[in-house]
């Protein structure tokens, strides 16, 4: 029988613009796909008609970059029988109506392409970029079967050493590095950003006043409160799935132990109480377990604490260094920082089979793995040309993306949850 060669084509209907006042701010981070997968789906963006002044946001370019950078799609220029269908409508002052159709066509066959998606939106000019990411999400979900993360955000720390004193910035950007916004600018270090489950707040550690304390800051307004300032270190905040508690690390007892804090009451409950180093807690998606880093068996390894039974079991066995573990969204795997032959890599451990894979493929050290909310990619820090940059690797290791920073060293990243 005829082999179906599916070529997907996207037709994006353009928007007419009346005004093009907004200036275009370049991204803090810019993505470079370094390795896509061989089974990537070919996808074609047909040129769309522009009526009037070109829009300030090139929706087709944003969507095509999103899909290309996921590593799951490759931009195709092959020929296909298809039709471009669309309408262009202005919808008022700085408002646009955007329509798109996702068509599945059959190469060489004289049939009507199938309409997989047919959507229409009316948005303000400010929302064009967000809309493009939303369209990417819809296409990704339709073709891959998994919710897309193109509308999520990244938090990370920028360190600028070319000024005196060194400047530390906690910054939030879109998932593709655009729209960077500072949440905190400081001359003292900032570390361990952690998004709340609804994506509205970020907890972090700041060393202002020459002491580490944990703050919670509202992402939209920038208002913040200091919620943990005990003697010694206050660190590694981790939000519970229900958003009501933070697991955190305090050294006030004389050694590093993990505590649970009820955020409303500030009440503290110790979870570990020994003389080892216990740090970097992370919650299981069902909220019933915490994994954490501990050197109780000699070298740093990942351990799991059952919050009901209080039983602690060791989780990592590959190599003599495993730290900073976190679960995939389905709770079945753990990503972690692993050291092998002196090199720090990002790895993924399957909890059912015990099989461990190293995902990164670099001669430089990696750090700080952070899982995407759909489990598809892991954001982490690494070195490139002697500078700290962010990178992403797919959970099957086959896609790698680099996000070099423009204005300094970039480190300690945290991927937001799904945002609406």
């Amino acid at each position, binding site marked *: 029988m005829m082999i179906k060669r599916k070529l997907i084509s996207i037709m994006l209907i353009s928007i007419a613009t009346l005004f093009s006042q907004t200036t275009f701010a370049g991204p803090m981070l810019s993505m470079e796909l370094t390795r896509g997968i061989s089974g990537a789906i070919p996808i074609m963006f047909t040129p769309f008609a522009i009526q009037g002044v070109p829009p300030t946001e090139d929706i087709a370019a944003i969507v095509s970059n999103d899909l290309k950078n996921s590593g799951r799609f490759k931009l195709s220029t092959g020929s296909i029988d298809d039709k471009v269908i669309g309408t262009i409508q202005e919808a008022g002052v700085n408002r646009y109506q955007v329509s798109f159709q996702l068509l599945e066509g059959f190469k060489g066959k004289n049939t009507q392409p199938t309409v997989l998606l047919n959507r229409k939106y009316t948005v303000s000019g400010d929302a064009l970029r967000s809309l493009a990411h939303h369209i990417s999400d819809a296409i990704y979900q339709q073709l891959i079967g998994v919710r897309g993360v193109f509308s999520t955000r990244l938090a990370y720390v920028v360190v600028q050493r070319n000024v005196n004193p060194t400047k530390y910035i906690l910054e939030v950007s879109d998932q593709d590095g655009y729209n960077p916004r500072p949440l905190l600018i400081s001359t003292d270090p900032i570390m361990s950003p952690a998004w709340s489950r609804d994506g509205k707040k970020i907890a972090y550690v700041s*060393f202002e006043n*020459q002491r580490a304390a944990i703050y919670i800051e509202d992402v939209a307004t920038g208002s913040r409160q200091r919620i943990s300032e005990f003697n010694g*270190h206050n660190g590694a905040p981790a939000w519970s799935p229900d958003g009501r508690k933070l697991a955190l690390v305090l*050294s006030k007892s004389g050694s*590093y132990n993990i505590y649970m804090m009820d955020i409303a009451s500030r009440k503290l409950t110790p979870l570990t109480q020994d003389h080892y180093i216990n*740090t970097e807690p992370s919650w299981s998606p069902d909220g019933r377990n915490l994994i954490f880093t501990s050197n109780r068996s000699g070298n740093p390894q990942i351990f799991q604490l059952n919050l009901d039974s209080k039983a602690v079991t060791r989780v990592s066995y590959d190599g003599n260094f495993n*730290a*900073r573990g976190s679960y995939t969204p389905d709770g079945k795997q753990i990503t972690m920082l692993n050291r092998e032959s002196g090199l720090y890599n990002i790895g993924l451990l399957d909890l059912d089979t015990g099989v461990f894979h190293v995902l990164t493929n670099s001669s430089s050290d990696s750090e700080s793995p952070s899982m995407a909310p759909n489990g598809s990619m892991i954001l982490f820090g690494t070195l490139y040309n*002697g500078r700290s940059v962010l990178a992403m690797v797919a959970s099957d290791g086959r896609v790698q993306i680099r996000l070099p920073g423009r204005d300094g060293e970039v480190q*300690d990243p945290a991927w937001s949850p799904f945002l609406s």
Partner: protein
Amino acid sequence: MQLKNIVRSLAITGCVLALGACAAPGHKSQDEMNGADANAGGVQSSGVGQGSNFGDSAGGPQQSLAKRTYYFDYDKSDIHDSDKRAISANADYLMAHASARIILEGHTDPRGSREYNVALAERRANAVAEFMKAKGVNPDQIRVVSYGAQRLASPGHTESDYQLDRRVVLVYTKK
């Protein structure tokens, strides 16, 4: 002999109050260097250098006090023998000045996991703190802050950069 000791004590106090701003013995002072410009007409004058009235050539007490960064080996929190004299000198100062206060900052190199490195760095700072307390320093005079790898001494990523990162820094917050 007694006068020498008084001079020595005054010099130590003076240096500490200036928090390291004074020149170590054996170095030319700024005045002497400016004086050389006045001889630009071809006449070359030279001084005989500042004599060392006090302290030994191999690290006098004021040099020991001024040495406030102590380095550590990879994955270790053992104090180097070569640092013990300087730490002791600062311990002596603290014991002689009950209102003086210090912070001991702990640091690691940037490899590994950030929050775990904070714990490792605190071990280093605690090692110095315990050494001082064993000498008799009041614990209230010492505060330990661990920065982990958050305040790197060197921005590079070679082993010689990492050596500079692994340190404890003693900072006087009150003299």
